[in-house]
């Protein structure tokens, strides 16, 4: 079934769910749960642009989401979420369907469970991808940018297709396996990242993406370890005015994650590798190119009080693990692409205050060396970016 057909079936159902929510009697279990969230951010950078004209202070970061879910039957759960996300030049705030799915529980016992999901499904990559746009669930002002690059967010965010989930439970560990196949979503940000610029031609998914994850957790939740992977391909069909030929890009996005909770402390670390291969693109530097993106971060968060969390994080990201310093690219391009655009080393300190269960405020300071995490859509001239820069960010979030 094509993804558009899936949505022709699912979307009216979800819309109906929302409309009916007020009509359904409270107390029954056929009731529709409606929840939502809103975040407004402020970003000030010492140089470069991140989510708008941040050198002058930018308010161009707003996230709004509303979701609805209901048990259609004893075993089938329907849920969907509308999301509006404005982030500088990258995302305009146009509402989109974040997820819309039917989750069918085939089996659920004290020892194991098994289920199937159909629709637009969030990809469970790393510990945070699924809910990366919900401030309350993030480990900081944003998800760690070196692993969860905002500029390729849409490509790995979700897939329109089918997923199977299965878990086994024991006193030793809970082990979950997730496998999915579906069509990814591409956008102009993805084109800028993998083709280096925006072109007239069409950059679109080439076949299905495959997503897999193994998650092992101690039953008391104090240790969570996962390996997750997504494999996807895109094709480019040039427009008449484009200076590059047709081509294709294939990539694998793999993340190893570990989180430990020790009393009031939460320690989190993730490592990401992304082998990328370019085919075709005759007449451009992309022809026959191969690179492996690599990144990692460590974070320690301390629950100072029940309503206050303080955190520090250090992370590094590289466009190509074979060229950590970026010097090769700088030499190959005669300095047009400076070395510092090929890596980001970021030290972060932040504080989260849960004013109430519905209201949260965050403040964060980041010291950056390198500009890999920046979008070239927001910073179109690589040589004009400043390698050493600071970011200060504030956000206010509300949920219901």
């Amino acid at each position, binding site marked *: 079934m094509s993804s558009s057909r899936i949505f022709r079936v699912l979307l009216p159902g979800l819309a109906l769910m929302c409309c009916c929510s007020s009509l359904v009697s409270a107390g029954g279990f056929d009731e529709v749960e409606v929840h939502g969230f809103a975040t407004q951010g402020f970003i000030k950078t010492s140089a470069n642009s991140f989510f708008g004209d941040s050198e002058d202070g930018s308010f161009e970061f707003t996230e709004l989401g509303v979701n609805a879910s209901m048990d259609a039957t004893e075993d089938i759960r329907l849920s969907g979420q509308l999301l509006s996300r404005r982030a500088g030049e990258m995302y305009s705030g146009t509402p989109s369907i974040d997820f819309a799915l039917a989750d069918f529980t085939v089996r659920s*016992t004290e020892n194991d*469970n098994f289920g199937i999901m159909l629709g637009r499904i969030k990809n469970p990559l790393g510990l945070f991808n699924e*809910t990366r746009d919900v401030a309350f669930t993030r480990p900081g002002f944003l998800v760690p940018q070196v692993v969860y690059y905002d500029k390729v967010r849409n490509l790995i965010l979700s897939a329109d297709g089918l997923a199977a*989930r299965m878990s086994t439970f024991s006193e030793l560990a809970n082990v979950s396996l997730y496998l999915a196949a579906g069509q990814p979503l591409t956008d102009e940000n993805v084109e800028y990242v993998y083709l280096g610029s925006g072109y007239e031609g069409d950059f679109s998914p080439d076949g299905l993406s495959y997503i897999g994850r193994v998650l092992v957790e101690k039953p008391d*939740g104090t240790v969570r370890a996962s390996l997750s992977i997504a494999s996807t391909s895109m094709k480019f069909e040039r427009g008449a005015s484009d200076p590059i030929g047709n081509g294709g890009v294939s990539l694998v996005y793999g993340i190893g994650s570990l989180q430990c909770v020790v009393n009031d402390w939460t320690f989190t670390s993730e490592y990401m590798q992304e082998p990328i291969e370019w085919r075709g693109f005759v007449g451009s530097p992309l022809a026959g190119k191969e690179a492996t993106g690599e990144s990692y971060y460590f974070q320690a968060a301390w629950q100072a009080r029940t309503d206050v969390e303080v955190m520090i994080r250090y992370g590094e990201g590289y466009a190509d693990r074979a060229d950590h310093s970026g010097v090769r690219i700088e030499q190959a391009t005669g300095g047009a692409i400076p070395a510092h655009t090929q890596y980001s080393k970021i030290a972060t300190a932040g504080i989260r205050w849960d004013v109430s*269960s519905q209201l949260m405020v965050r403040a964060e300071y980041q010291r950056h060396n390198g500009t890999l995490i920046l979008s070239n859509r927001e910073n179109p001239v690589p040589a004009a970016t400043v390698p050493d820069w600071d970011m200060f960010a504030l956000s206010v979030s509300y949920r219901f």
Partner: protein
Amino acid sequence: MIRYFRSLSLLLIAVLVAPAGAAQIVVHHDVARQALTLNVARLIFTMRLLHWPDGTRVRVFVLPDADPLHQEFAKRSLDLYPRQLRRVWDRHLFSGAGAIPVEVSSVEEMLRRVAETPGAVGYLPDGLARGEVRVVNVQ
């Protein structure tokens, strides 16, 4: 008079030092389980066990995160931090990856909803379970 005052202060001390009220897991009376292992209790409240052994759907009720009884319940009955439960529920809620519990606003509502919902499970302060609502021990 002195004796009266002493009893009053003892009562006051008892009220002040008593925990928020030890929480007990309670179920709708149709639920056949007499006791739960700690593991199964955790699976239920992290929304990973959706059916009782007889096939009835498990319906989970909780109090708000900030409620002292909820915090007591999470730590004592499940040996989990309330924020760990919140993390799991939020992941389910904001990704569609799973079910979330129904939040009730008071102990009275908890008692009423568990009593009237087949398959229901929740928690109440020690000694409040009655009628259609039965205590299950965690072993």
